[in-house]
């Protein structure tokens, strides 16, 4: 019989991250489908608050690695904690959220355990009594369903792919798993975070709409001159009114690296597509962006798509968007902003 370990770090408040609750939901369902034993394992500086979130999942055991050494996302200590929890649970399958913290360490932990790992899973299921997973290849250009025979099989599930579990009932007691940390595992120190000012943060993973600005915003307009300042005002105005998340094509963010006049709030972090992010939002509006395939692969998980472009034959018009408005984005966004005020 399979034993499924749900494995996650906690946040600074000791609770599971949202992606952790989603992965927990997937682990619970898979355990039910396989008639497997579910074990939960959490690690962090504080773990007790996470126990309440495990309530009602049917976990046979709830394990924890707790302490100041596990406060920060540091490879050596996170790997030690994840390895200890895995060895204590002796799972055949490990289900974990694909957060940056766990994506950094779990492939290595799978190697330490003599197992195998698969990342960016969008679904896990049981087929003929065996677990299977679904993930994308070639940057969201094709989707595969696969299974493995080696165990333990460590699976990282992308955020937004499964409903979060809703705690129900009493919190299980956490069994503490001891982990000794030495100086060799403290060679790395996490010293802080670098983030844009809160009023300049343009990446909003939970936004209902993604607004993509393409390179056209910085190109010469009808009067023969670029209007970058006006473009900045219009885009920020739209983001302010709609609380949208800002994405970009590679060509636009590359302009900043090459020293051209650019949108000052745009960086590689905003990049969507082949070499950028693949965010999940219910809606997406592309402006001044041609909709070429390397960019559009980053839109795989955007449900409703609209575009504003002067070219009626742009990529968006060829089956990649639901609606393409053949119009000047400067004029359209100015009017949209006025209506949203």
């Amino acid at each position: 019989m399979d034993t499924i370990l749900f494995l996650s770090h906690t946040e600074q408040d000791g609770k599971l991250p949202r992606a952790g609750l989603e992965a927990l939901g997937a682990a619970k369902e898979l355990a039910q489908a396989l008639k497997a034993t579910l074990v939960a394992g959490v690690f962090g500086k504080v773990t007790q608050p996470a126990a309440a979130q495990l309530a009602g999942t049917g976990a046979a055991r709830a394990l924890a690695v707790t302490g100041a050494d596990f406060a920060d996302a540091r490879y050596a200590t996170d790997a030690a904690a994840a390895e200890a929890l895995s060895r204590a649970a002796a799972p055949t399958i490990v289900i974990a959220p694909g957060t940056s913290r766990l994506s950094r360490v779990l492939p290595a932990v799978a190697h330490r355990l003599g197992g195998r790992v698969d990342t960016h899973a969008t679904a896990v299921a049981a087929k003929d009594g065996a677990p299977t997973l679904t993930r994308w290849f070639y940057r969201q250009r094709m989707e595969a369903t696969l299974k493995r025979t080696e165990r333990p099989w460590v699976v990282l599930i992308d955020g937004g792919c499964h409903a979060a579990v809703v705690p129900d009932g009493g919190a299980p007691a956490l069994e503490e798993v001891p982990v000794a940390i030495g100086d060799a595992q403290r060679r790395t120190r996490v010293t802080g975070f670098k983030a844009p000012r809160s009023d300049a943060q343009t990446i909003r993973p939970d936004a209902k709409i993604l607004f993509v600005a393409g390179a056209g915003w910085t190109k010469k307009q009808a009067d023969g001159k670029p209007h970058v300042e006006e473009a900045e005002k219009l885009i920020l105005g739209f983001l302010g009114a709609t609380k949208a998340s800002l994405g970009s094509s590679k060509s636009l963010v590359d302009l900043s690296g090459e020293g051209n006049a650019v949108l000052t709030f745009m960086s590689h972090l905003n990049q969507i597509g082949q070499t950028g992010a693949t965010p999940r939002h219910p809606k997406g509006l592309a402006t001044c962006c041609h909709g070429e395939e390397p960019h559009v692969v980053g839109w795989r998980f955007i449900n409703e798509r609209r575009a504003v472009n002067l070219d009626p034959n742009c990529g968006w018009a060829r089956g990649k968007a639901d609606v393409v408005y053949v119009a000047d984005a400067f004029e359209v966004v100015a009017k949209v902003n006025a209506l949203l005020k």
Partner: protein
Amino acid sequence: MSGYQIVVCGSIVPDPLQTLEPVTGPSGPVLKNELMLPAVLDPWAGHALYEAANLAAKTPGSKVWLVSLGPKAKVQQVMMAVGQKVPFELVALDGPAGGFVDAHETAAALADAVKAIPGIDRTKLLVFGGWESASRGAGATLQILGERLEIHDQFQGVDQIAPQADGSLEILERVEGGQHQISVVAGPPALLGWATGNLPEPRNNPQVGMANMRGIMPALQKSKPAKVGTGDLQYLAVTLPKAQRETRVVKNMPTDEIAREIVEWISKD
């Protein structure tokens, strides 16, 4: 600091502008006409290579190796272009570079190749690569490689590395919500999976190209076959998304009306 030994692991991927279609091969899924598709250096690995070269140029006594696992003929084509960009010594492994191979097997082959580089000194070693490939996108190969090399200071989604006066390295990694986590590692050995970094693609430099070519061709000639495959992976299905939309192209609509339609659409739950 007497210089870094920077080993960049990077392979080739189909040019992103190509149409990709999965077909079933003798040992699992492959791309249709895979060997005919034009290839490029994996984009994130490319950023890793350019950042490595930049760090080496700023740190006297440093050297960059590029360890590349792929079909020899295709790697040779790509190296004709990449070799013009920055100085490096190629270590070539002849094997599959497709997206359906197992990250564990790739990591094992890369680890053997890194260990076999003459004169590698762990006290100077920095292993670079793209944090994911544009083929499998596993985001796992480097971590397993690091474990096999016993490197336990690893960073993923790196956008910046800055050597400090005391020999430590400050590293910025991408984390959730458009933020960077700032870490300081005491020094090499360390492993960094790069996101885009901050450097533009270097211009072609004929002198660099000529110097690189003296090493690239012999490296390709002596490249060893790498036993890399799908391992225990069993693919039950590989399909293209059926996501062709029926696009409504709206021409000659007054701007006011377009704006009203967009606002209505945005406001609808």
